[in-house]
Each structure stands twice: as structure tokens, then as C-alpha cells.
């Protein structure tokens, strides 16, 4: 498939390290993901209290998107940036926590604040809200990172003028094991 579109920026977060266009821009050592996420939040001067209500998958997707979108988004303008994410574990990290809240009939405490995060596309909603992106979005699940598919889908959105840019990639989180690998196609 020929493509007139190119990848302009990328961000990878894994093992408590953030890369922007393959250059290491932040690192902490030995932290849990929650501690690492909090340090990133402080380091980048993010002021967004909703962040602390998010589940780990949303926090991961949110932080990687902050790195890429902070320069892309023009306030007050219509930013037609589509969000197209994928991962392996869907929302299973939170699903397991929600399941634990209903395992014991004597101690039954399902919480709406947890239940809402038992859908993987909630992280897309969080990023849409933060950057006011009223744009195309989709969340896919694959066994392995399928950048070829995501790039093809991004191309179809750009070709059909459904978006002017596409932020896409892999955001996987399960039980402290995580990888965010996002890129912008335009």
C-alpha cells in the first residue's frame, strides 16, 4: 500500500523510562508504575486533578499522549486529531480488580468508579476530554503490537479526510507490566 503520510513524532514509555523520538527524556529507578506516573506528572508540570482518578491503563495512555500532543494542540482551534489505540490485555488489569470486589458474597462492594474503567476505550475518552478532541476514535485488541494494521487504519482516516492527524499506537498495561508506544501520522 502506498502512503503519502508519514510518522512525525513518537513516544515510548517502558520500565520507568520515557523516550520522545527515540531520545530518553525522563527516567526514574525502582518505582512502581503508580509512583513513576506521579513523578512524570510532576516533572512535566501537568495540572489535571482527574489524572489521579484514572486507572493505570488510562494514566499510561494519558502520559504518552501528553508528551506527543502538548505541542500539537492549538487551544481554541478545531484539532481534528484522531485517536486509534490498541493493546493485548484490554482493560483486564482493572477487570481483575473489579472481579475481586464481587468474588465474596459476604463482602460485595462493586464500585461504579472502578467499573467505568473496565472498558479499554475509556483511556481514549480521557485524552479526548483533556485535549477537547471531538474526533474519530477506536480501540483495538491484538495478541501482539500490530503497528502495520494501526498505520493502515490511520491512513484510511487521513485519506478519507476523517482526520488531519492520527495519534495511534500500543498502550498495554497488566499487573505492573506495561508498554506505551505511540506515534503521530499525518
Amino acid at each position, binding site marked *: *500500500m502506498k502512503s503519502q503520510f508519514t510518522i512525525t513524532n513518537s513516544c515510548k514509555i517502558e520500565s520507568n523510562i520515557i523516550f520522545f523520538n527515540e531520545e530518553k527524556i525522563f527516567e526514574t529507578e525502582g518505582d512502581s508504575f503508580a509512583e513513576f506516573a506521579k513523578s512524570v506528572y510532576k516533572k512535566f508540570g501537568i495540572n489535571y486533578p482527574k489524572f489521579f482518578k484514572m486507572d493505570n491503563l488510562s494514566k499510561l495512555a494519558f502520559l504518552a499522549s501528553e508528551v506527543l500532543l502538548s505541542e500539537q494542540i492549538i487551544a481554541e482551534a478545531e484539532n481534528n486529531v484522531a*485517536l486509534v489505540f490498541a493493546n*493485548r*490485555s*484490554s482493560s*483486564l488489569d482493572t*477487570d*481483575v480488580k*473489579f*472481579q475481586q470486589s*464481587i*468474588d465474596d*458474597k459476604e463482602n*460485595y462492594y*462493586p*464500585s*461504579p468508579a472502578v*467499573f*467505568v474503567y*473496565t*472498558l*479499554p*476505550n*475509556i483511556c*481514549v*475518552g*480521557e485524552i*479526548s*476530554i483533556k*485535549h*477537547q*478532541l*471531538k*474526533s*474519530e*476514535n*477506536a*480501540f*483495538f*485488541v*491484538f*495478541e501482539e503490537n*500490530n503497528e502495520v*494494521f494501526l498505520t*493502515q*487504519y490511520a*491512513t*484510511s*482516516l487521513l*485519506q*478519507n479526510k*476523517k482526520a488531519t492527524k492520527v495519534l495511534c499506537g500500543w498502550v498495554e498495561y*497488566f499487573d505492573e507490566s506495561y508498554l506505551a508506544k505511540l506515534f503521530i501520522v499525518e
Partner: protein
Amino acid sequence: MNNKSVYITQTNCITPLGFDVNSNWDALQQGKSGIKLHKNVGNLEQFYASIISTTELNEVFDKTVFPFSVSDKKFTKLEKMLLLALLPLVEKHQISNRTAFVFSTTKGNISSLELESNPVKEAQLAFLAKKISSLFGFTTEPIVLSNACVSGVLAIAVAKRMIQVGVYDDAFILAGDEVSEFVLSGFNSFQAMSEMPCKPYDSDRNGVTLGEATAAVYLTSDNNKVESNAIKICGDGAINDANHISGPSRTGEGLYKSIESAIREANITVKEIDYISAHGTATLYNDEMEAIAFNRLHLQNVPVNSLKGFYGHTLGASGLLETVIAIESAKRNHLIMSKGFQHDGTSQSIAVIKENKPAEINYFLKTASGFGGCNTAVIFKKLN
């Protein structure tokens, strides 16, 4: 750019009202609903839901001949529903190395988490998709779409887009979700469950009734396979509200923009739309939001229904199941009533269908909205 046309040429569904499209259609004609009172799941003493009888499912499944051996394998209830939905389509259409398999679900085999000894892998959506796709002999990687309650409609848009961009020639779309304690307890914790069978758009509506179903459709861009009465996918849009993760936008912005995007691509005017198969979950906010979006687009006089009064909310299956029924409505030129609706219950009025009736249907619109602020709209056209 001149995109090639993509058509739906075959459909199927497995629901409490029947295990094929014709039996579902007959049940809908008779006004039957799959919603019944059920008891004692989790801490719910009783609740309404549209649930497939496991006994009936097992009987049908055991009698069905699949192109692979099933006796040596174990299948969950959802897997049996999925295999039965897909079978007639695979029997009719050849699978090639340019055939996509798109699977839409929100929670898949989430019930497997109930047994702690089960490996978490069994609850992974891609694992389930691979299990189904490899049995039928698909060679391409399954494309799993898990985008809350719009998944089933979005799957159609995704498959059509991927065919148009030239990656695939055709696609099988399969969608399914089951009623589980996981989902029941979650919706109940939101206080979003109706105490009676749900009443979409009605003034007395007070929440969702959950349901389970599977549905399947076959998409092709091969004009030689297209017969009269085939359904063309004319345009689509799937735009986020950017407003709230668990409530719809009060202005219906994302749905408005999704429909607008679909109409623009279809290159038609709103006047040409003959019927809307809407989402209509029967929550106060969802139905109100849809009425506002339809009014903003001047679609308030187009006949509209929600099928949730028949099937409940079947989550990742709902968009595809409701499209299958809408296609049947178009082919038979017959509108289905919006079961549970009696009195206008939205601040801006819409043309909710009160009784089954004949009507000429050429262009129709399917919409859905869901958690995470997502929305999807697809415009279809019946070929004459």
C-alpha cells in the same frame, strides 16, 4: 478520491428470540421480547434481562455440523453463540488470505475470571478471537474491536474502511457479549438498571435492561457477489464527545458530528434518510442526548426505533445485531415498533415508531453511543 463500494450481502444472529434472522423477524412481528425476570445472580435477588436458554443453545449446538470437530473441545456459552452465528456465512463464502475477520465485543469471556484457578489468558479478547478464527480457517490476524457500546456498529465502519484502503477484499464481522455477573453488578452499581423491562424514549424510562446475543455479517467489495437487495455501506463516522467518560454530552455533540460525517461521505441530504435504528438504552441521559442530536440534524421526523425493548442492551453485540434487524426492515420495507415506548419522554420530540408498519426504506441510519464518550453512525442504502 474515488472509493470502491462495500456491501453487506449476508447476515445472521443468535438471540433469545431465535437462532437465525427469519425466526427473529417473525418474533419481532409478533411483538415478542427476549426480556424476562431472572433471579439470584450475585447480590441481585431479581432483575430483568434478555438471556438465551443454555439448554436450548446446547441442543442446537450439539445438533449442528461444523466444518471442524467440536466433540473434543470445550466451549463457553458465548463461544457456542459465536460459532453458531458465524457458521452459515463461512459455509457460503470462501476465506482467502485477503479476508478480514473483525470481532466486536466488550467483555468476551469475562466470566472466566469467576474461577480464580482459570488463567487470565482465557479472559483475553484476542485469545477468544483466535480460538474462533482459527477453527474456521481464517489466516489473517483477527481484528478485535472493543470500543464499549459502539463496537458492533464501529466494526462495520472499520471493516469497510480497511477494504477501501486496499488491505482486504472482504470481511466477516462477528459480534457477541453475554449477560454476566460482572456486567450486571457493574451496571447495578451505577444505578443504571431498570426495575422493569426497559422503555427506550418513554417518559417512564428508568434505565437499562441487559441482554445477550451474537450477530454476524459478511462484507464484500466484489460487485459480482452483489445481488439486488444487497446493502451498500455509504458513509460512517465515529466521533468522541470529549465531555465525560460515563455520561453522554448534553448537546449530543459527538453523535451529531458522527452522523454529519457519515452523511457527508454518503453524499446525501438528511431528507433522503427513511429510517433510523438508534441506540435507545432507556437511560434518562442517553435517550435525551439522542433526541437533541437528531433534532439538531433535522432528523426529528424520520421514523426511529430502539430494539432494546426486545433484546435488552447486548453491549458489543448490540450495534451489529440492530444493524442486522434494520437491514431486514429495509429489505422487507417494514418498520418495527420501538417496544416499551408509550409517551414522549424527551425534551425535544422525535418520531418513535409505535407500531409495526409497511414503509419504503432505501437509505437508513444506524447509530450508537457509549461509555468513554464514543459515538458511531453508519448510513446504509438498499440496492434495488
